[in-house]
């Protein structure tokens, strides 16, 4: 069974440029998460989807970040414009259900460097 797929794996951009990350969760997983992981820190939740609905986006910086999961399957996270402080690894995860007892499966992440 394929795991969570993310692309690209690495991205280097100049500040003020836009960038987008794509995630395809494990088949059948209704819940999808985007996390940001700064160097030397644990992941921090940005947004959680139940099917196509964003049910927790309280930590998403909405002035520059946006996300979508139009058909309730794959998802895109966008930053426009990127700032130096956005350099981090962006992780996507999925789980069968929403409850905290459901194991989250993580993708390999996209390492973003903003110059």
């Amino acid at each position, binding site marked *: 069974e394929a795991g969570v797929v993310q692309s690209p794996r690495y991205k280097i951009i100049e500040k003020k440029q836009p960038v987008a990350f794509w995630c395809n969760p494990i088949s059948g997983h209704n819940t999808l998460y985007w996390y940001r992981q700064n160097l*030397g*820190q*644990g*992941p*921090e*939740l940005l947004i*959680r989807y139940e099917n196509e609905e964003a049910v*927790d986006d309280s930590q998403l910086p909405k002035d520059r970040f946006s996300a979508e999961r139009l058909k309730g399957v794959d998802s895109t996270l966008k930053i426009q414009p990127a700032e130096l402080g956005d350099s981090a690894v962006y*992780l996507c*995860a999925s789980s069968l259900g*929403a*409850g*905290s*007892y459901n*194991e*989250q*499966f*993580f*993708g*390999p*992440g996209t390492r973003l460097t903003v110059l």
Partner: protein
Amino acid sequence: SQQGEEDPQALSIQEGENATMNCSYKTSINNLQWYRQNSGRGLVHLILIRSNEREKHSGRLRVTLDTSKKSSSLLITASRAADTASYFCATAEAQKLVFGQGTRLTINP
């Protein structure tokens, strides 16, 4: 914001020795989970302990939870080179996981 705080931040031991990592948190939780992250396999779920459990085992892993002290520990017995990774505790509050800063474990041959 991160709730869990792992201690130590870094740990280096010899292969075959046991490794113990601790996690402290601040608020009430439904469960606490431990994850491992290395460059090869990304972030992987290791074990979940419910708030009404005190100890749980999985292979060479032993997790304890003390809700009165708001702390947990992860013990890895008979360590192997492949255990070299960062280990994170994550506290589950409602439907949300909050990760700590992690302990970087290095197993020396």
